[in-house]
């Protein structure tokens, strides 16, 4: 299992996580198969505890899905940041996960992007996440 992405797209995720620190950022990984060709920022609509939670507005998600469907791409994953927490998915992340998506988690420490990892559900059950390799595509 792996996800392929160019460095400048990873840089966009890092930048997003740093800009929203100490709140969580979130967004979509758009592309085809295991190749990310676009990173789309989404609003974190969690108004209660955005420093440790994120929600993506379903209506906004639906509109992006329609848009990328039109051009033959897919939403292949989700990214979000963990401010001052490790780049590992939490139990909460697992509980709220869907199968067949890549979940990138960015650790942001003291406002600086530190590490990014990617995970997929092991199978269609919500048993565990398996880490997948992030392979850098040539620019």
């Amino acid at each position, binding site marked *: 299992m792996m996800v392929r992405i160019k460095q400048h797209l990873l840089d966009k995720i890092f930048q997003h996580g740093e800009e929203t620190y100490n709140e969580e950022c979130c967004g979509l990984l758009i592309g085809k198969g295991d190749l990310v060709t676009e990173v789309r920022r989404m609003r974190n609509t969690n108004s209660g505890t955005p420093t440790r939670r*994120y929600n993506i507005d*379903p209506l906004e998600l639906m509109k992006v899905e329609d848009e990328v469907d039109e051009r033959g791409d897919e*939403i292949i994953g*989700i990214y979000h940041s963990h401010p001052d927490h490790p780049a590992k998915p939490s139990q*909460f992340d697992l509980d709220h996960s*869907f199968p067949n998506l890549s979940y990138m988690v960015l650790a942001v420490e003291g406002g600086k992007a530190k590490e990014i990892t990617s995970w997929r559900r092991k199978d269609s059950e919500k048993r565990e996440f398996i880490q997948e390799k992030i392979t850098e595509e040539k620019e």
Partner: protein
Amino acid sequence: MTEVTIAIPTPLRVYTDNQKKVKVEAEDVENALTALVTSYPSLKRHLYEDGKLMDFVNVYLNEEDIRYADSTKLKQGDKISIVPSIAGGTS
């Protein structure tokens, strides 16, 4: 019967033979979703738990959230969208 389209989100398309949209015939939203999971039984456990729509599954009729109004009557050509509730964060 009324023919409507149900939009399937990317992560669940593997359970609908990779179809993005599925046409079903039904009079209301609840029956449309039942027709969907009858045609694609492996989809059912990703949408329902104990016979109810899971908390993490949103249902829109055109652009209206109708998660809790599943007896809503359908019109010819309506589009139902199943939209995952994407959430997470540190524990």
